């Protein structure tokens, strides 16, 4: 049986599985580069994101632990995170908008990556600015949410609604995530400017290094941005929906 036929079989034979596993091992351990299609920058961003995943996981697991260990009842998220709109209390409306906003920004980011590789500089830069706008809007809404909760008496060390750890975890986790978004917005603006000017066409040295930048930086930026969105989905699920 030839190799082409093997793939059409419903179950993979043991022999094929073995050879494929060995193939992966051979690729990884091969000459010069373990990940043949990844540049240094992209590999570095991926590995950084794995490390950052551990940071966010530790934050979220710690939050779940204190939520379970605390002796006082946890405030009800759908009541705390509700907005009065036209005399009606709508639960989680702001969070829903924020989530929609951030996920939309992921879409514009992906389009920016596409246009950057197509060398359509203006479109790529504008889409990155739109992404940055959505990011800034997200941080703005977060600031609004913080202000509202602070007015209602929620503090890192306590709140009138229940367990003190609610405020602690809320400010810490959303703050840490908001910091990530803010850093992302800053870098989006810097890279959008470089794309707009055509820095990557003329090989102008980057602002961090003396090396020539490449359009790939837009995709690396995109990796970070999508990661920050993905983390938000987990924060949304574990903090607001639980």
């Amino acid at each position: 049986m030839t190799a082409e036929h093997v793939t059409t079989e419903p179950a993979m034979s043991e022999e094929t599985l073995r050879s494929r596993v060995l193939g992966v091992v051979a690729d990884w351990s091969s000459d010069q580069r373990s990940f043949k299609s990844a540049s240094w920058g992209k590999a570095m961003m991926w590995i950084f994101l794995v490390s950052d995943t551990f940071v966010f996981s530790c934050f979220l697991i710690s939050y779940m632990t204190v939520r379970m260990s605390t002796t006082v009842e946890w405030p009800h998220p759908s009541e705390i995170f509700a907005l009065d709109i036209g005399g009606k209390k709508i639960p989680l409306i702001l969070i829903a908008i924020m989530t929609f906003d951030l996920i939309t920004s992921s879409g514009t980011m992906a389009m920016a990556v596409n246009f950057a590789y197509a060398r359509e500089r203006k479109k790529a830069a504008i889409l990155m600015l739109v992404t940055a706008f959505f990011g800034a809007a997200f941080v703005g809404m977060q600031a609004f949410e913080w202000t509202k909760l602070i007015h209602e008496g929620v503090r890192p060390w306590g709140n009138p609604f229940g367990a003190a750890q609610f405020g602690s975890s809320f400010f810490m986790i959303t703050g840490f995530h908001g910091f990530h978004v803010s850093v992302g917005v800053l870098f989006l603006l810097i890279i959008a400017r470089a794309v707009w000017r055509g820095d990557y066409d003329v090989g102008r040295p980057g602002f961090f290094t003396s090396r020539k930048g490449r359009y790939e930086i837009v995709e690396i930026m995109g990796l970070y941005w999508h990661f920050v969105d993905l983390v938000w989905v987990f924060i949304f699920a574990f903090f607001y929906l639980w």
Partner: protein
Amino acid sequence: MTDASVPQNVAPPPAEVEDVELYHAHSWITKYVFCQDAKVIAIQYAGTAIAVGILALVLSWVIRLQLAFPGAIPFIDASVYYQSVTMHGMIMVVYMLTAIFLGGFGNYLIPLMVGARDMVFPYVNMLSYWVYLIATLVLVSSYFVPGGPTGAGWTLYPPQSILTGTPGYDYGIILMLVSLILFIVGFTMGGLNYVVTVLQARTRGMTLMRMPLTVWGIFAAAVMALLAFPGLFVACVMLLLDRTLGTSFFMPSLVELGERKDYVGGSPILFQHLFWFFGHPEVYIVALPAFGVVSDLISVHARKNIFGYRMMVWAIIAIGVLSMVVWGHHMYVSGMDPWFGFFFAVTTLAIAVPTALKVYNWVLTLWHADIHFTTPMLFALGFLVTFVNGGITGLYLGNVIVDVPLSATLFVVAHFHMVMGIAPVLVIFGAIYHWYPKITGRMMDERLGKIHFWITFLGAYAIFFPMHYLGVLGMPRRFYEMGETAFVPASAATLNIVITVIALAVGFAQSIFFYNLFKSLKHGAPAGGNPWRAASLEWQTPETPPGHGNWGKHLPVVYRWPYAYSVPGAPEDFLPQNAPPMSGEHSP
């Protein structure tokens, strides 16, 4: 299938990545201070690490003096004692050992050993050092603030670490936490560089399975550090919030000095989990580079290929993976579900398997080898002995039922100093004696080196071996003074005095090493490019010390593994990795 049938020694495929543009320093400042060359960064890292290491050594004398002569030395009160214990532990583990192995040897050796011109991101690499330096300065600055550094013990367990009774409550603990956060940020920048350089910037022919074990050890340690430091980072952030903003992540309701604190409902055990999720892998972040370096030292100075290279690599990976799931064995006495105790005991003892495999392979490398008792070799052999000793007491402590009575005694102190104090430090010394000729172009004095080895090795044994007995006697660790304690016999006090005297002597004897280090800079015998006749790539540089960009005009091409020693038919008794293949040669 794979290319097993293809001869291994054909010329490697063409370069996949074009040669990098290097940043060329234009002034003295950018060449030696804010430098982007990994070799200079390595020396900056190592120099800073050794400097704080000396501070930590002096602090260990304070501890020893108090244990031997309780109350006799006027300036050592309980606060100073606890501050010394804390700072000694934290500096040695994080700011000295981690920094010197990864920041020092990692920076110097990775690019040279894999045939790269530099780390992949030299600018980030430079930032890494400067953030590390700031972290170190913040830590040391806690000696100059009111109340001094924190005396919480290096594990910083809350609630005690942030209560007013602990020395350094005002500023010390805050500076410690800030410093650790900075260290982690700085390390992440460096760690990403090390990992990506190993994965993506190897030269032609340098497959993963042709890398020296030193690179494997440092690589695995850097990966683990990137996964384990987040635990410490989060723990530090949350503890800092508890201390400064009054949150209650780790703080339960409690009464201190008759006063009800505002904390409510936190979980102190959570801190321990986060801390040890970092803390245990940390042991191997230090040990794995030491394993790698020792493999290379033994192979070069015994003129024999390392026994079971592939198994050595897989053992490093297995140890790395297992060590991420054993952290609970530090918490047996914190109270734990017996099933979890069982799980953590099993994973802990399972680490003994790959570790023992490594020890057997080192010994089998030495078997029937042409052993040259050079200073680096002596230190490598010293490591084997101390490491096996410390590893075996680790098997005791990995069992819940043995750990519970021994946990709070000097037995634990003896164990971890043997396994992650003395053993890695011996490797660091051996590695400095081994690579000094490449770094400076001159040899260190062998006679002084051997004197230094015997004093350090025998002295370290004399210090830590008796502590096992003290521990079994029930002598507790961390106690400021024992007073009249019925279960500790008077002879224990005598033994403590002996240990202290030896500790002071061995500490001062390190000046032999520093004298040798600085004297040899100018007066050492010229080393030439490859004084140990070693096969790995760092010894094949066109210049010694290696110039900017490491390799001159063309990157080296690698044809074989780094352990081609005593090869039959070779012109010398070794074949460098980049020497063109001999006819009919079939090397890994």
